[in-house]
């Protein structure tokens, strides 16, 4: 039975278990004089039976789906004759691959070692047996569970409490997905990074000034030693983020101030959502805009005044990224400014300050921690932004601070190193995970500090 059909049958069994539990509780209640003599409503008896039937069977099925390949392959390998036993990991992968191809018929059996043909037949058999075994076990678990749930029903059974406990555990499990995600991210980038740092020393990676992630295919190849000094990438990322922040922070901040302090309700009702449109546009669209409209425009403008602007200049990517971040800064700043108590404004205006003086000398200092937090969050957005730089910034790692030059960033390199087919043991692909680790650490630190600052600030006026 295929997994999908098995799933369908299990759900059917769950439904039947629910109905049987429901029905039995009502039948038990009838001689006692109605369901008010039961401890819980009949629904809960039904649900309890359904849980007993479904949860163990589904758990079993999930475990099987996750581990079936590993189990079957290890059984296959242990059954192989001595001369076929692989010695290295790559040999093992190759062997498994050819046996799978033989089994699926993609490879003709002509001229193949007969032991291999036996192995391929064994693989097919193991798969078939495994599938029928799991079908049998899962279905009998479901039936037995339903029977157990049905059997235990009595008017005294505290079914509601039991069902609610299961619900509560399920809710907690869902809430913990966030933790698992963080742990998953950490594990995935950390492990691959550690493997990377085995072949490239950490100091070379963090302080090296040259980035050219080529690895040799042959041992004697020229010019393919590969150097993994990430400083040019850090500088490129910083340069583009800096350009983005010089656009986003003043514009976003002034927009927020105007909307919060000056604009009347009509302007606010239309201008605010219109600005928010910028936040909803996918980054790939910004990338297209930067690469095909802004970059050629800047190059032509540069030619006009006698400057050589690269067609993949940091300026184009940075400007467009800044535009993208404007609504982010302005909505955060808006929240913070609105949180400043009205009494501070009234006091300042009452002493004769103009509105702009009130804003500059009273509201802005009062809101400063929150604004700083918001800006930090915006910086972390800029550093992690991918599509704009992939499409509009360059690939060559240069040590330069000239915004008209092409630079590359951490995210661009992650994408270029990992897109397409790749093997998982070359330093070239592992370097991407090391860069990912850097990115994760930096953004995590920025977010942590920013959230902390914002929280501290909020408590001040609450």
């Amino acid at each position, binding site marked *: 039975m295929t997994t999908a059909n098995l799933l369908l049958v299990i759900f059917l069994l769950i439904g039947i278990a629910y109905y049987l539990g429901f029905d039995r509780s009502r039948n038990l209640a009838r001689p006692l004089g109605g369901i008010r003599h039961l401890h819980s409503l009949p629904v809960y008896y039904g649900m309890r039976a359904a849980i007993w039937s479904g949860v163990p069977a589904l758990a079993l099925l999930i475990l099987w789906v996750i581990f079936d390949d590993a189990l079957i392959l290890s059984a296959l390998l242990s059954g192989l004759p001595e001369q076929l036993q692989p010695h290295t990991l790559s040999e093992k992968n190759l062997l498994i691959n050819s046996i799978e191809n033989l089994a699926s018929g993609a490879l003709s059996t002509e001229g193949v070692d007969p032991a291999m043909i036996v192995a391929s037949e064994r693989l097919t058999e193991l798969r078939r047996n495994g599938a029928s075994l799991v079908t049998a076990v899962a279905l009998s678990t479901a039936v037995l569970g339903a029977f157990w749930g049905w059997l235990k029903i009595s008017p005294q059974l505290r079914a509601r409490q039991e069902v609610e406990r299961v619900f509560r555990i399920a809710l907690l499990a869902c809430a913990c997905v966030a933790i698992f995600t963080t742990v998953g991210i950490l594990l995935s980038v950390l492990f691959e990074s550690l493997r990377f740092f085995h072949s490239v020393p950490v100091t070379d990676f963090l302080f090296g000034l040259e980035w050219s992630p080529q690895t040799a295919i042959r041992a004697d190849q020229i010019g393919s030693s590969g150097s993994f000094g990430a400083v040019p990438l850090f500088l490129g990322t910083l340069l583009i983020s800096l350009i983005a922040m010089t656009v986003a922070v003043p514009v976003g901040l002034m927009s927020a101030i105007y909307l919060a302090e000056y604009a009347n309700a009509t302007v606010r009702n239309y201008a605010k959502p219109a600005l928010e449109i910028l936040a909803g546009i996918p980054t790939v669209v910004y990338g297209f805009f930067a690469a095909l409209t802004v970059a050629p425009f800047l190059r032509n403008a540069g030619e006009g005044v006698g400057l050589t602007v690269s067609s993949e200049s940091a300026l184009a990517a940075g400007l467009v990224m800044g535009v993208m971040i404007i609504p982010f800064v302005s909505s955060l700043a808006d929240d913070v400014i609105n949180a400043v108590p009205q009494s501070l404004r009234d006091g300042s205006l009452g002493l004769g300050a103009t509105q702009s003086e009130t804003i500059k000398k009273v509201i802005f200092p009062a809101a400063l921690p929150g604004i700083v937090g918001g800006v930090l969050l915006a910086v972390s957005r800029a550093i992690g932004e991918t599509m704009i730089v992939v499409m509009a910034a360059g690939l060559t790692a240069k040590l330069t601070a000239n915004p008209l030059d092409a630079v590359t960033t951490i995210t661009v390199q992650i994408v270029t190193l990992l897109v397409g087919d790749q093997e998982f043991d070359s330093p070239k692909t592992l370097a991407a995970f090391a860069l990912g680790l850097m990115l*994760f650490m930096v953004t995590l630190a920025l977010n942590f500090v920013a959230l902390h600052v914002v929280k501290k600030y909020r408590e001040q006026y609450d």
Partner: protein
Amino acid sequence: MTDNRKNLALVQKGLRRRYRAERRFRLYGILSISFGLLCVLLLFADIISKGHSAFLQTYIQLEVTYDSGILDIDDVSDSGQVALGNFDGIVRAALLEQFPQVSSRRDKKELYQLVSSGEGFELRDRLVANPALLGKTETLWLVADDDIDTYFKTLDDDQVFAGMVSERQQAWVQALVDADRIKLKLNTNFFTRGDSREPEQAGIWGAAVGSFFTLLVTLVLSFPIGVAAAIYLEEFAEKGRWTDLIEVNINNLAAVPSIIFGLLGLAIFINFFNVPRSVPVVGGLVLTLMTLPTIIISSRAAIKSVPPSIRQAAIGIGASPMQVVLHHVLPLAMPGMLTGAIIGMAQALGETAPLLMIGMVAFIVDIPSGPLDPATVLPVQIFLWADSPERAFVEKTSAAIMVLLTFLILMNTAAVILRKRLERRW
């Protein structure tokens, strides 16, 4: 008295300067907002001006004869014969018939380039659908090649873009114009096909279906999990270290760069669990993890907005805490949660970077038929086309962006309407 007057004079002296500063400050604010709004306008104007022409396509009218000699087919029901049939040959014959004076081999080769190389397949499908056509002649509008398409579209402009179109080809196009045999019609390929290397045959339907399946997986996973997590955190969690840890994690995940989720998907789902690459299920899983914080945060806000009196009333008539939540709080908070879910889905629909990591950038021609078929999604299709060197792909990319933005605007409008219509003020 004199002191007071002196102060007044002092204030009055500075007043003009201060008012000027006030006006200047106000102007900066107006300029900032105008800049932001201008960027919105510029972006839309740029995309629309580049992309609107992609919705029309150049077609050439030809008399196509399904000549069984050229096709080498005598029985249409024989699929082997049909598969080998020389359908390009009858397109060429039709072109030669239109321009009988072309004789040299080089000229013929150029002539054949007028019509898209994918049209042979179109004719094959027509013949298979209607076998009686064999040996008959039909007047058909065939899709022109992308270079001809670009040339024809700029023909009326001041600046004609000839590009790869030779002078002889230009003369032929002029002849077709004079004979009224070339015109722009609605580009149906764009809405019904998958990706193609030929710009005139490329469409977004494959990517749109891929996006649909990916979002379906995302919605089915992230909405229940997100709502359940929000319920737990708002209604059941006791203040403590564990709860704090969960909250810190959710807030941090909301700000983690999306590409990191791609790395997670690559290392865990593809490398560890051996899920196949490029399939919507993996894309959906990665996007689920990415949108969960958004959905949890908005769901929590929705639960918070349900007044405590509802809970107290339910508890007062004997409901258990779980019954209070499932029977009363959840239904009342549902509109707010749905709004959050739509916004999360809009975010997922526009996301590109993590999907690049898990191999959804493959060149996929077929329309996916389920969430386990290799597929690509709309934003990735845009990225792929933006990278293509053919000039005709620029308008295709912009048109695809217009389609994507239309979906996003629809979703966000739906969210706003839902919020306005269903959300209750207590």
